[in-house]
């Protein structure tokens, strides 16, 4: 079974600063997908960024980027120029590659990020 570990239960960052959220995972699969999801206080979970394990290039989405280290099984999220609206719970998630039916996500326990003025 795959496990996802987020070692930082809570983090805080000032507006305009950069913050990095860590995530490690354990798997024997060679082909898989990794995700960061964001859950603001309103509770709607939304996708932040996605990385395919076979791609060496790190994914980026505007101010969000990842540092994917496949050998180390590490998948950290960097938020640049933090904004108040980035305050949320962030979940790292793993999905193995599969043909056919859909496979569910394995989630970490989450990191609560607070952006302060």
């Amino acid at each position, binding site marked *: 079974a795959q496990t*996802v570990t987020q070692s930082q*239960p809570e983090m805080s960052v000032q507006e305009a600063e950069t913050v990095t959220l860590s995530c490690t995972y354990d798997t024997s699969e060679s082909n898989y*997908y990794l*995700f960061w*999801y964001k859950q603001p206080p*309103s*509770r*709607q*979970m*939304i*996708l932040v960024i*996605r990385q395919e394990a076979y791609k060496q290039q790190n994914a980026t989405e505007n101010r969000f980027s990842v540092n994917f280290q496949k050998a180390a099984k590490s998948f950290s999220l960097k938020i640049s120029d933090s904004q108040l609206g980035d305050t949320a719970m962030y*979940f790292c998630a793993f*999905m*193995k*590659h*599969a*043909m*056919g*039916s*859909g*496979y*569910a*996500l394995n*989630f*970490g*326990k*989450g990191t609560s990020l607070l952006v302060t003025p």
Partner: protein
Amino acid sequence: DVKVTQSSRYLVKRTGEKVFLECVQDMDHENMFWYRQDPGLGLRLIYFSYDVKMKEKGDIPEGYSVSREKKERFSLILESASTNQTSMYLCASSLGYGTDTQYFGPGTRLTVL
């Protein structure tokens, strides 16, 4: 935009009641999922469905069942609610090719007294 809706944001039930949580998606997605979210535990998969009338157990199916009679609707059923089922329940859907993005509903906060 994909829209996943859940029938209630907040629900209060009594121990022993039969509880139905409804989820509807409007994007013709093949896959639908029910997760349970508890503080310090993250999200855990209860059941998922990859086609109408098809279902598979997730990590914590005990005490729950599901129903998918139509493609757009996926129901989670608590046969006899217990206090340890007090939680936030999240529904999600995805297009249908295994590793595509899941889209989540707003969640239902269920309290069992």
